[in-house]
């Protein structure tokens, strides 16, 4: 009985953590699907989003209105940052070997982290993220907090919106076309540059939301906070099959639940190791991930 209670409690925690991972993983998977680039700076865009949210909430005090406003503000800031990163760092290297883009992505990530560290009003020290008072709603033996409800609901709404954009709008159709074949899409009159920029903006908006939700759930922020959730979300994206949008969502939830279960039943120390082990096992058994498609190499 004890085990069962821990199980359900960790399941709820895992769903909450997993929905944050899923939001971040969507950014990785969309960018990879279109320009075949592991955007290492994605986790740091999340950090920028969390800091923007911090300043808005700091100025207005933690209330539901301020939280909503902080989402809007940080989404705008991150969208601009994402488009700027794509324009100045990645676009000049789009036709270069993949390794060069990857190294540039690592460099952009370092610039964002160290840049935030030297900015006089940010600084390297961790800060307390202002959150609303936690209210626990208990169902018998286990409970769910208001913050977890917010996290889960906001992520689901954002994912539904994303699903609508990708599957039912013209831009979404263009995105899918570019992802399928970039050159053919450009021959059909689709502006590839605009679609790629839009993808980065969309991914960064989700990262911004993920950043604020992550900071609300674990209320401490510092310039390197994006690295770990970024890597985990990337693992989630690979787990679900990189390039696949539903895969990233599924991967995020699986990873979140796996991690909290490890914390609940084995040891919180090993949670990081477990998620990377899952990644390695998945890649060895099914290198394309759970929902990825196999690419054939032609000579």
């Amino acid at each position, binding site marked *: 009985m004890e085990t069962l209670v821990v199980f359900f409690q960790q399941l709820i925690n895992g769903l909450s953590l997993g929905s944050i991972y899923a939001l971040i993983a969507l950014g990785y998977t969309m960018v990879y699907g279109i320009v075949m680039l*592991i955007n290492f700076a994605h986790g740091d865009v999340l950090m920028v989003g969390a800091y923007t949210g911090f300043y808005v909430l700091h100025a207005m005090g933690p209330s539901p209105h301020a939280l909503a406003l902080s989402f809007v503000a940080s989404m705008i800031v991150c969208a601009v940052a994402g488009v700027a990163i794509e324009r100045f*760092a990645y676009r*000049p*290297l789009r036709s*270069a*070997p*993949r*390794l*060069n883009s*990857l*190294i*540039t992505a*690592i*460099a*952009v990530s*370092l*610039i964002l982290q*160290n*840049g935030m*560290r*030297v900015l006089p009003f940010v600084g*390297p020290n961790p800060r307390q993220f202002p959150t609303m008072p936690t209210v626990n709603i208990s169902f018998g033996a286990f409970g769910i907090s208001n913050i977890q409800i917010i996290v889960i609901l906001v992520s689901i709404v954002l994912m539904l919106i994303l699903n609508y954009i990708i599957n039912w709008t013209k831009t979404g159709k263009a995105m899918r076309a570019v992802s399928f074949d970039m050159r053919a899409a450009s021959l059909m009159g689709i502006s590839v540059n605009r679609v790629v920029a839009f993808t980065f903006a969309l991914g960064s908006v989700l990262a911004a939301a993920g950043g604020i939700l992550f900071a609300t759930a674990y209320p401490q922020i510092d310039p390197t906070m994006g*690295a770990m959730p970024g*890597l985990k979300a*990337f*693992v989630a994206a*690979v787990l679900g099959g990189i390039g696949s949008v539903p895969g990233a969502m599924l991967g995020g939830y699986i990873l979140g639940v796996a991690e909290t279960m490890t914390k609940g039943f084995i*040891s919180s*120390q*090993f949670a*990081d*190791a477990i998620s*990377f*082990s899952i*990644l*390695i096992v998945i*890649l*060895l058994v099914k*290198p394309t991930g759970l929902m990825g498609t196999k690419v054939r*190499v032609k*000579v």
Partner: protein
Amino acid sequence: MKTTVRMRNFILLAAVAVAVVFLPGLLIKIGVIDAYTAQIFTLAGINAIMAISVNIICGVTGQLSLGQAGFMAIGAYVCIWFSQAMHFPLPLAMVTGALFAAVAGFFIGFPTLKLSGDYLAIVTLGFGEILRVIFVNLKVFTGGANGKRFTTILAASADIAWIVIIGTLAAVVIFLQNFLRSTYGRAIFSVREDEIAANSNGISVFKYKMTGFVVAAFVAGLAGALYAPFIGFVKPDLSSFNRSVDYLIYVVLGGMGSVTGSVIAAFVLTYLQEFLRFLKEYRLLIYPVILILVMLFRPQGLLGMKEFSFVRAWQRVTARRGAKDVGK
């Protein structure tokens, strides 16, 4: 005629190597080079060995590894454990550390080298992070998250440290140059250039990738086994992703595939990091900015695929002098 030229080249290189290893060692001993400068350049030597290790995977074998610092950490911890707890003599402990890293390289390479490109990068990244967690939790051997302190002869005397570490660097460079010019080296190059073409010419792609991976792991383990006794302190963060990226930066700037390029880049950048200390936090921004500029304007790095050759430099100098003599 040919044998005398070979003999002359051999003597030239041997003289350069001996001079590089022993002359600064002597200067450190008599106090012309102070301990601080000596420490920076000795550390640069270790960074150069790590850069060579990353280069063997990224430049020579053509695979991207983001977990090379993990092998370094294995080398460091195993060396320290064998020399402190088992009372092995230090040189033997170092070789043991490097061998353990090579064995780890074999067992990790065996399943992962079937993957390619980005996936391999991510798996090696995950491997480094998993190792870090393991080191944090194996408190009996590693001293946990806060690390472990100890004293060795390398930490105590700067001149011996220089001779041992730069001597190892010279040995690694010589070994590697010969390795790359052997049939093994040529086969590895062909795998890098075109896997499918190499495979259809009867070269076992997996075998040669594995050879490159294990050699690189061995060199990284050696660097770790030198680093720990030299610094006198080890911490699980040694195997973190950020450190692997640092070494990758040396290789990218020096030129992927160029062993001498990565050695030069490691020395220049390690010195630059100390030299730029007056910039305080801003110096953290300089590395990544340089990296992006290099990727945009000189993607092949400083030396590209070329090697700096003492023999060629010598020939150029003597040829110029010869031309002058003729002019007279």
